[in-house]
């Protein structure tokens, strides 16, 4: 069974916008939010990178998350809730409160057993783990030290101890729901509980390719008749009180090194790139739907998904295999799945992190497989890297580009590392076929092919 799969709804939470309309407007304006990292992170370690892309202040209630829910969810799951709710609204589903609870909903007229949830995340509830781990580790030790500092320490020691106590700051409680907050499948489960969805519920945890792999497998599930509707995408929350997650990427040498000019620091595919811009997080959720199912509902179709493939490098945990043989095999499989030739692809939303290794290898492969005429941009040049959410956000950008026949520029690209057709201006173009690709720590490669719907 090969059924046509279309995108009928989308939602997004990102550092440059909440909601598809604001996000897309800011993409086309090449908006980027770049700020110094929280000052207290540098009290714990010497960091090489100094910048990140913070999320705007977000009221969870605005994302449809009540206080009782927010207190039991990792922030990554809160972001997923907001994106999912917007996606259902945009898809035109009538979201009806449950008879027994105003916090649980169902999608009127849709069979919940024929809807699946397929979300990706790179690190799951790492924030919740670290937040509670700090409490577990320090709460008793800090109380003992504090008592000593206040009752027996000399004035000189007191000053030193106060500094140490400040470094040992922790949250107020060891949370009784910590397990259900940190488990990687929490976001997929929470979204399905919220909207009473009882079909397959899967979490893909493949680092930076998580969102792409999730959407790709959701596409297959709809195409092959496993479900009629798939809620798919990715979410990630990379913040923590002590900069632990940031340090992990920093020590690996993946983050921006040249931070002197914050506005110009993030520059994928540029000769002067120095690493990726760390994002606080984000989420994008797409509603995929079987074409006739969507048409019967009168849904507005954003774009069509026509192909997906994934391969694995089996080379290195941290770097792409030289030559990109498995990436090329993945791309050719995705094109074959979509029934198009490489020459028919008009636009590529690249992985485009801004690291030396990624961009060089990726540009070489694009040149080899697609040639120099295909338009290429990197959404990470605007947002930085949202890890498990990035693939889903970039598929959303690809779909919007096909819908509107225009796309955003590759920001800060002054001296391209290769002679490719990087998008340098927002202009109307004939974009019929688009491809969004992601590569991940571990060695995962994945791409989704989309077609303008007509």
């Amino acid at each position, binding site marked *: 069974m090969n059924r046509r799969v279309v995108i009928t709804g989308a939602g997004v939470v990102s550092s440059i916008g909440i909601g598809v309309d604001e996000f897309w407007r800011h993409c086309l304006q090449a908006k980027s939010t770049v700020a110094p990292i929280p000052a207290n992170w540098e009290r714990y370690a010497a960091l090489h990178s100094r910048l990140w892309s913070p999320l705007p202040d977000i009221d969870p209630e605005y994302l449809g998350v009540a206080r009782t829910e927010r*207190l039991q969810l990792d922030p990554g799951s809160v972001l997923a809730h907001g994106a999912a709710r917007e996606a259902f609204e945009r898809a035109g589903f009538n979201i009806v409160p449950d008879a027994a609870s105003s*916090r649980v909903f169902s999608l009127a007229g849709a069979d919940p057993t024929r809807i699946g949830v397929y979300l990706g995340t790179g690190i799951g509830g790492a924030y919740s783990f670290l937040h509670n781990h700090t409490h577990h580790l320090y709460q008793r030790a800090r109380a003992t030290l504090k008592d000593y500092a206040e009752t027996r320490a000399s004035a000189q020691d007191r000053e030193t101890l106060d500094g140490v106590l400040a470094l040992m700051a922790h949250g*107020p409680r060891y949370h*009784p729901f910590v397990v259900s907050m940190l488990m990687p499948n929490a976001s997929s489960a929470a979204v399905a509980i919220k909207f009473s969805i009882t079909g397959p519920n899967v979490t893909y945890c493949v680092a930076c390719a998580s969102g792409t792999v999730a959407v790709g497998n959701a596409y297959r599930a709809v195409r092959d008749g496993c479900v009629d509707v798939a809620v798919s995408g990715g979410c990630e929350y990379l913040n923590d009180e002590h900069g632990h997650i940031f340090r992990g990427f920093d020590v690996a040498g993946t983050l921006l090194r040249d931070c002197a000019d914050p506005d110009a620091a993030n520059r994928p595919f540029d000769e002067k790139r120095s690493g990726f811009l760390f994002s606080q997080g984000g989420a994008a959720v797409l509603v995929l739907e079987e074409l006739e199912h969507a048409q019967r509902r009168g849904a507005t179709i954003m774009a069509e998904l026509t192909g997906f493939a994934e391969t694995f490098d089996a080379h290195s945990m941290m770097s792409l295999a030289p030559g990109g043989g498995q990436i090329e095999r993945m791309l050719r499989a995705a094109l074959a799945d979509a029934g198009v030739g490489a020459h028919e692809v008009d636009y590529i939303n690249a992985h485009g992190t801004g690291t030396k290794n990624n961009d060089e290898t990726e540009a070489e492969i694009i040149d080899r497989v697609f040639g120099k005429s295909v338009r290429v941009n990197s959404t990470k040049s605007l947002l930085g890297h949202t890890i498990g959410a990035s693939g889903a956000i970039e598929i959303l950008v690809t779909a919007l580009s096909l819908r509107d026949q225009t796309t955003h520029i590759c920001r800060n690209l002054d001296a391209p590392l290769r002679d490719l057709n990087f998008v340098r201006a927002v202009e109307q173009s004939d974009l019929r076929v688009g491809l969004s690709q992601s590569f991940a720590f571990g060695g995962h490669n994945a791409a989704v092919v989309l077609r303008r719907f007509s």
Partner: protein
Amino acid sequence: MINDVQQRVLKAIAEVLERKEEEIRLDASLRDDLDFDSLKQMTLFILLEDEFQRTMPPEDLMGIATVKDIIEFIDRKLQEPAPT
């Protein structure tokens, strides 16, 4: 003080149970009258921690059986110095 605490406790209970505040009696048993199971009880206390900005470890909650017990417990908690 007690009226403010009482009002906020009733609001928190109503929030967890999704019921109206006026339906909750002060002498109501959490378990027998309001159908609080252990998960709902944990939810209530993380909500109360958030509301009153005081930690309420499980060992401190032993013996709390009614709405009035919670109000008295919170009132005692608020006499303690705020956490630093």
